[in-house]
């Protein structure tokens, strides 16, 4: 049985200027899953994320933590925010201390932990994102990718159950993206539920267990990436199909079946492996 950790039920939200950013948005985030949220610019991903952490409150509908409606009292929000870590899109808007170590300590200090406890968590979090070396550097001397890691460490140090990242890959070079995926994978391995907003279809297709596609403040499709991302209406909305899926499809039209135990490859690596395996089979006498 798959358990829901956080869910939105018919959530609507309008910004003060009257923009309807979310309208009857319903979705479920499963515990322990890797969820990718996709959608065109302005679809409402960031707005939805701000709801997950209790920063915005729905004007209609409700959010549920493991089935019970969120409690927006002081204590309720405290609980929620220590369980749901939110990493913003622009690192400069999240880092407000001048030194790396200090900034990472900000969240745990807010939780009211002892200094010793905070110190341990900070070192642990910095280690988890591979930033121990740069711990004493001033934030403004870090590269963009390093700043992003510090942001994650800052959230990680609060030991959340879910980490929600708004476009973590944007602005990173290919190597950094790969390293970043590895960091996400490690976090996921340690039992943290991960939600990522992204414009990178290929990444979503290869990485996620669950895809949510948004359009104009609503959920357009919700389910396994290999189904959702190949749906016709989703393709029309996002304007593309995952490259790996497209290649497999074209090859299957040519009569080359890349299925392995019934599964098509999901990432570049898997695709290459499947093609190699297939060629080898063909060449066998």
């Amino acid at each position, binding site marked *: 049985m798959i358990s829901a950790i956080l869910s939105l039920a018919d959530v609507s939200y309008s910004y003060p200027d009257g923009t309807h950013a979310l309208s009857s948005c319903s979705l479920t985030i499963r515990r322990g899953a890797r969820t990718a949220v996709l959608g065109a610019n302005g679809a409402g991903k960031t707005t939805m994320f701000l709801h997950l952490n209790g920063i915005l409150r729905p004007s209609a509908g409700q959010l549920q933590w493991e089935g019970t409606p969120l409690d927006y009292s002081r204590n309720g929000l405290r609980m929620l*925010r220590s369980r749901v870590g939110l990493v913003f899109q*622009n690192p*400069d808007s999240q880092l407000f201390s001048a030194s790396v*170590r200090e900034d990472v300590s*900000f969240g745990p200090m*807010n*939780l009211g932990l002892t200094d010793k406890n*905070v110190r341990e968590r900070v070192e642990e979090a910095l280690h988890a994102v591979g930033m121990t070396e740069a711990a004493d550097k001033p*934030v403004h001397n870090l590269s963009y990718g390093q700043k992003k890691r510090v942001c994650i460490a800052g959230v990680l140090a609060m030991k959340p159950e879910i980490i929600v990242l708004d476009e973590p890959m944007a602005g990173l070079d290919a190597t950094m993206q790969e390293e970043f995926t590895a960091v996400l994978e490690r976090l996921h391995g340690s039992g943290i539920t991960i939600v990522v907003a992204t414009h990178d279809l290929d990444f979503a297709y290869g990485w996620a267990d669950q895809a949510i596609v948004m359009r104009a403040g609503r959920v357009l499709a919700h389910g396994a990436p290999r189904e959702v991302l190949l749906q016709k209406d989703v393709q029309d909305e996002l304007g593309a199909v995952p490259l790996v899926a497209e290649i497999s499809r074209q090859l299957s039209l040519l009569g080359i079946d890349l299925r392995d135990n019934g599964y098509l490859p999901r990432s570049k690596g898997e695709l290459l492996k499947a093609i190699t395996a297939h060629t080898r089979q063909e060449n066998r006498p």
Partner: protein
Amino acid sequence: MLTELSAYTNRWRQAPPAAKGLFSFCGMAAAFAAGSPRTALLVALILSAATILGAGVPVLRYLRVATPALLFLLASGLSLVVSLDFGGSTGGLSAHLAGAELPRIAQVSCRSLACLTALLFLALTTPLVDIVSLLRRCRLPDTLLDLMTLCYRTLFVMSEAVHETITAQSARLGYATFTLSLRSLGGLVANLSVQVWQRSQVLQLAALARNNDGALRFLGPDYPNPARAVSGAAVSGLLLIILAVTLP
């Protein structure tokens, strides 16, 4: 940011800020205690030697950081020495040399110089982050320190924004002529005010997201052997004050 660079790269970066703050404070006390310009100069010399030889700040960088303040000191010293007089008894413009006041002016200038070197010592060996955490331990009001932290951080974020905006404007010939420059400058200021406002809003959201409910709390850094360093600083600082008091 030359100060910044030194603060993070000097030999005494890892020394506890309490020790450096104490020594700097003693330096200022010694500057005030100095009975003659000669003694004040000696104090200044010792303090700058501590910065250059002790903390290993390159001489040239030290001079470059000190120059603006020194020029300012020189200008104010000169304006004390020479006083201009309009009208007066003769009706014309006349300049007076303040003859009798000279020793006192020398005294004030040399003391200021010594104070300057004491402050430079702290600024060039200790990052602002450490200074703030030191002040926090001295029980300065949180609001003031939070402001310092935010201003400092914002300085870098904003300078980047200014840089980017100017580059973008120049790329579209925003500064090609004088009139265009004025217009672009106006645009820059307007754009920056909006950006400052938006950024401060997002910063607040980010603070909320990490469970903040008011004061910005951070973990102070940890230093090896704080007691030894602080007592070392106390002893050398006291010696400096005694020197300043006993010398004529």
